[in-house]
């Protein structure tokens, strides 16, 4: 099962390496990790989506994160009400019916065309992870030339 954990950390040299080496050293699986400054430039926020089959493993992950000296607090969003977003940029190669497909997707989902080039569209998709996955499923039927995604960020309600 996937869990979303947020760690507020000191915004300084080497902290990302400490967190990522903790995960690799202990064999925990990271689905995504995003990091950026918060309202306080001395503090960064890491949103980590982890795979943990057992409650015991999830507890260990949280405790191990908390144990890192540069980690200030750890919030587990499991069983909490929160808002999340993930950003995707996709280059979709133009084919005969591309216009229809893109128009249909725009109607159904929160998608915008940010570049309409001669032979491709660049789409921007910003949504909750579950919708992002749905959109991706649709898009995979077409000619995806390039795809980049940010990983999930989250904030509590």
């Amino acid at each position, binding site marked *: 099962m996937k869990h979303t954990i947020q760690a507020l950390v000191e915004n300084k*040299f*080497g902290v990302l390496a400490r967190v990522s080496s903790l995960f690799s*050293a202990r064999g925990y699986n990271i689905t995504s990790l995003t990091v950026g400054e918060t309202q306080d430039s001395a503090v960064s926020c890491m949103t980590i989506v982890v795979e943990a089959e057992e409650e*015991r493993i999830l*507890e*260990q992950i949280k*405790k191990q994160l*908390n*144990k890192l*000296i540069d980690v200030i607090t750890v919030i587990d969003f499991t069983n909490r009400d929160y808002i999340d977003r993930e950003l995707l940029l996709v280059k979709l190669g133009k084919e005969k019916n591309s216009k229809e497909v893109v128009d249909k997707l725009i109607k159904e989902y929160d998608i915008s065309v940010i570049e309409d080039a001669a032979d491709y569209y660049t789409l921007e998709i910003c949504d909750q992870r579950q919708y992002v996955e749905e959109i991706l499923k649709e898009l995979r039927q077409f000619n995806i030339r390039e795809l980049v995604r940010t990983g999930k960020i989250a904030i509590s309600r």
Partner: protein
Amino acid sequence: MKGAKIIIESLRKEGVEVIFGYPGGSVIPFFDVLYDAPIKFILTRHEQAAAHAADGYARSTGKVGVCVATSGPGATNLTTGIATAHMDSVPIVAITGQVKTSLIGNDAFQEADVTGITRSISKYNYLVKDVKDLAYTVKEAFHFARSGRPGPIVIDLPVDVQIQDAEFKYPEEINIRSYKPTFFGHPGQIKRALRLISKSKKPVILAGGGVVIANADKELLTFAEKIKAPVAITLMGMGGFPSTNPLSLGMPGMHGTVYANMAITESDLLISVGCRFDDRITGKLDAFAPEAKIIHIDIDPTSISKNIKVDIPIVGDAKNILGQLNKELEGFDVPDLSKWQTKVNEWKNKHPLAYKKNNTGKIKPQHIIEEIYKQTKGKAIIATEVGQNQMWTAQYYQFDYNRHFLSSGGLGTMGYGFPAAIGAKVANPDKEVIVIAGDGSIQMNIQELATLSMYNLNVKIIILNNHYLGMVRQWQELFYKKRYSGTPLKNPDFVKIAEGYGIKGLQVKKINEVEKKVKEILEFKGSVLADFLIEEEENVFPMVPAGEAINRMIGGMA
């Protein structure tokens, strides 16, 4: 003030009296200041030994041990010692030189990414790029090393920072928002623990390294005697509870006593104090203390419910929590445990720790340990290497005093014991310091005989020489059809080696010489290396095969 002077002054502010280390190109400014400083310097002959010596100094005193090495190979040689200290929660500060800041990342001569390499084997590490950060860094490093769950801290110090100038002002206090260890047990948890204790009919205390580190030996004794629970003492817990106390069960686990393992298996309440339930203690997890509720006292929350599901966790310092429990226990009516005590005593009488004496005509290693115990009256500081020598020492030397047993438990580092003994001797010049080694492990840092000799330290080296890497040979005998692959040793003449370094060497071959020779060794004013030729295929028993339940022991059940 120059950076090198700032760091030395900062070390003095932290009360550092001795540094173990080895010089090199990137620490010359540091050594130049050290030359005039009122800090003793001990030159080891390999950086690994410097880290272990700082560790032995720390374990035997509770103070922070300090070691120093140059950049690149100097620093990488320290890493085994840093990892050893990390696994056993030993407070050391390792200072490594680094190439000058403008060269970092350029694959410069003797450059290694020391903070990268030591990240997962230290409690914290620093690369100091600005001389203005230096004093604060040292303050923080010592704070992290000794507080909470102690551990090694690495300060990587580029050579140019050592010669840059800054104003020296040592911080009085530090406050780190992201680092607040818990020291006292939660009162609610203490009450819940007491409720379980008052209902338990078959309690066992499991005393780990946390008791030693927290100096909680007196509190544990009071606690155990109050609730009348038998105490199993892990390898790291040796000295945290007197082995000769009638409540002692000795060591549990893979090479533990039958009675410790039986008592844990049948207990209805296991009170773990500063023990992290290592696999060498638990054996097969689902058969470990299957009937017991578990109270777990530990300063590190990650130790709790990591391997074993805990019923009542109490996070905090063992000394404080046992103190809190003891206070609540005033006027406590101990449940009637006579049946349990009878049962435990039955196991003790039926399956004592034992070995066959004189059945082969060769010296038994256990006999040597017993003799050393008898003649030192248990008052010596004993360091061990790793393997059979370590287990026999844990089984047959009785540890009644805290911080008198130095051994690499977690990492299991061969080559630890001898330099650790050197560190302990430097810290405790008035105490007898003995290292019990194997013929394999002594050769991993044998060059330190030069350190002993140079500083005229009095350390007794006992080699249990069976011409094998004995513990691996034992596994090969028992589980690999006696195919002794890679384990037979052709050894040097240890007596001549000792003499070559200017140290008294002697060899003991006969059983009837053991008592006399141990006396001669102990009475000699100065270091002695004693090569005891022992029964070659003697095994450490009892033994729980890896992955088995701890009550399924081989050997010792007869």
